[in-house]
């Protein structure tokens, strides 16, 4: 390669490396602050500020959803496997909101560590399955559970 072109190539590489290093350091510095939500264990560890608008996310615990019979109030727990957080919300939940699915709620933590949510979003996973296959998989799972119980 021509020496001038080689020099220009080196400059181009230097430019990309320098830009990557700068942005990489910025992303590293942002770190946890770039998270969209806190996990229940982060909140249990006191990492989330009280009485400030935050978001919390996790898996909606099976059997934890309690709906009020005469209003839109709903109470449910989200878990990340290590800690759980109780969320209160008064409003219409998204269609995909369900027990055993992930959800992200935005609101303020009260003194009892309950998140008073003003918005609840459903977070779906990256798996896609046809309904028949999902049914068959659920049945197989239930059978296995029954076998193990016996």
């Amino acid at each position, binding site marked *: *390669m021509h020496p001038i072109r080689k020099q220009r190539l080196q400059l181009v590489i230097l430019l990309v490396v320098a830009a990557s290093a700068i*942005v990489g350091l910025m992303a590293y510095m942002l770190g946890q602050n770039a*998270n969209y939500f806190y*996990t229940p264990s982060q909140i249990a560890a006191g990492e989330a500020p009280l009485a400030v608008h935050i978001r919390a996310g996790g898996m909606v615990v099976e059997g934890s959803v309690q709906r009020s019979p005469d209003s839109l109030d709903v109470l449910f727990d989200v878990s990340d496997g290590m800690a759980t957080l109780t969320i209160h919300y008064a409003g219409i939940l*998204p269609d995909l909101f369900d027990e055993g699915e992930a959800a992200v709620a935005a609101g303020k933590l009260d003194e009892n560590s309950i998140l008073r949510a003003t918005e609840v979003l*459903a977070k779906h996973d*990256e798996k896609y399955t*046809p309904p028949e296959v*999902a049914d068959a998989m659920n049945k197989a799972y239930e059978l296995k559970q029954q076998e193990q119980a016996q």
Partner: protein
Amino acid sequence: MASGRNWNWFHRMGSPRWFYETTGRWLPWLWVLTLGLMLTGLVWGLAFAPQDAKQGNSFRIIYLHVPASFLALAGYYLMAIAGAIGLIWKMKLSYMVMKSAAPIGAALTFIALFTGAVWGKPTWGTYWVWDARITSMLILLFLYLGVLALQYAFHSQETGNKASAILALVGTVNIPIIYKSVDWWYTLHQPATIKFTSAPSMHPDMFQPLLVMIVAMYSFYALALILHTRVEILRRERKASWVRELALQAEPGGVAQ
């Protein structure tokens, strides 16, 4: 200049006229390929693939969303590499490819963001959130628009080319950030369904049409880029004799002048 001989093929390929004439022969085939793949993938994905157990039919927007996002990212690398070749070898054609890639990439990024918003409303419950994935994708749109804007920001085409190429190269750092954002941070956007390291977390009946759509989008990208670049060649080389001859042939009665 002894080593220059080895690079002759490279410089011949960089000739706008060579590119214009060669791609002119490819175009009909590329049209057939693109339309065929696109039609197959869309009909297969939208009408024949099974619906999703949880999301129902709304998941089908994946057949546009994922291919558009793929090419929005891959196209950025193509644009940046074209810019680098332009900077290093001062190749005119390379800058023309870079400039042509910018509006196509911006359009694909917009499609990815728009279909994502349309998909987000029925599944997440919102059109838009400022999570790491969506925000970094919005930055990609601004980078594409920036590269395009710099082309028109200077009196001299040469300065515009250099400025665009430098912005394109600096912006490449955003691509791995977009790709890894769903793993590095907690985001509302779910992690990748299609991974390089493991099987896709999608039923084969749903994945096959998606694969067809991804290939179709690559083909569409090639077609759009070639068409844009050809126009750019004619515009920038309008004073070259071969372009003048081409124009005279195209214009009725032009030969008589």
